[in-house]
């Protein structure tokens, strides 16, 4: 009888734990902001982790997923492995993922880049870039940019990768 009570307590405790862990899991649309007029994505030109200049305009003709993140941001850390898979899957069809880290310095970003086997360029962002993109005042924030450089979607907060995949595929197929 005592053992059954202990098991019941354990099951309840696990349920409570899972509730709190998953309370902020990615939601299907992750706070999608409608981009009514599809403005041109603000130009950004930043040094990436290798020191090369990362210029957004160089990716015109590709579908760009621009992800604002940071190494200390837990939802970001959940998204990034999925972005790595997405990049591998759709690279040849014209997807380019770009990470803009909002960390305070490059060292943790370089370490993170290697540990998570990131396969897309990452640059260190700043307040000016954040303001250009409407204010990056919480993470993660991701923009989908079409082949013509126009912002098609903005996702605030963790977003289920299936949403990104659906949107990426639609943009890749669009004329």
């Amino acid at each position, binding site marked *: 009888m005592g*053992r059954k009570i*202990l*098991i019941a*307590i*354990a*099951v309840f*405790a*696990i349920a*409570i*734990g899972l509730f*709190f*862990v998953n*309370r*902020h899991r990615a939601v299907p649309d992750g*706070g999608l902001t409608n981009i009514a007029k599809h403005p041109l994505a603000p130009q950004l030109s930043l040094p990436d982790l290798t020191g090369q200049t990362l210029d957004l305009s160089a990716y015109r003709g590709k579908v760009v997923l621009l992800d604002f993140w*940071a190494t*200390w*941001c*837990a*939802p*970001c850390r959940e998204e990034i492995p999925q972005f790595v898979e997405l990049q591998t899957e759709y690279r040849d069809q014209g997807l380019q993922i770009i990470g803009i880290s*909002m*960390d*305070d310095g490059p060292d943790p970003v370089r370490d993170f880049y290697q540990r998570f086997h990131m396969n897309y360029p990452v640059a260190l*962002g*700043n*307040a000016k870039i*954040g*303001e250009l993109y409407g*204010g*990056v*005042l*919480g*993470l*993660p924030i991701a923009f989908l940019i079409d082949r013509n450089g126009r912002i098609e979607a903005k996702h*605030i*907060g*963790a977003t289920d990768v299936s949403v990104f995949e659906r949107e990426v595929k639609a943009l890749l197929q669009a004329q």
Partner: protein
Amino acid sequence: MKLPVKRGNVVFAVIVLALLSVSAVFAFQASSTPVSRLINPDELVKILQAPKGEKPLMIQVGSHVLFQQAHIPGSEYIGPASSESVIQQLRKRVEALPRNRFIVIYCGCCPWGHCPNVKPADDTLRAIGFTNIRVLYMSDNFGANWVDKGYPVAKGD
């Protein structure tokens, strides 16, 4: 203590692991901060805008880039409190203050349950004897829960 039989050992171990896991989840989450020590944005705004009454020392314990884009006017930036070096800076900043000083700490980097910064800062201040600390509760992030609400904002350093 008499151990249960073999199958029971496995069950017992699962129970212990489950309880430890739940404890770990609670221990590192901002959501483990008691409600009594939280302050909502609208409450803080009222305090800041009141003509009288003690105004808190406000310390942002998150990202510098986010702080530069927008922060609560009059607040100070200390750094992401998930870093031990920042915790040391926090200690230095407050060491000379009276222990009943009204202090509000905030971050707003990410959804409340995922913030790695406010709890270490809160824990540190309480451990060194501060008795009047409140943590600014922001369910989503600083943008959604403060800036978008039209509350006062300052930019830069």
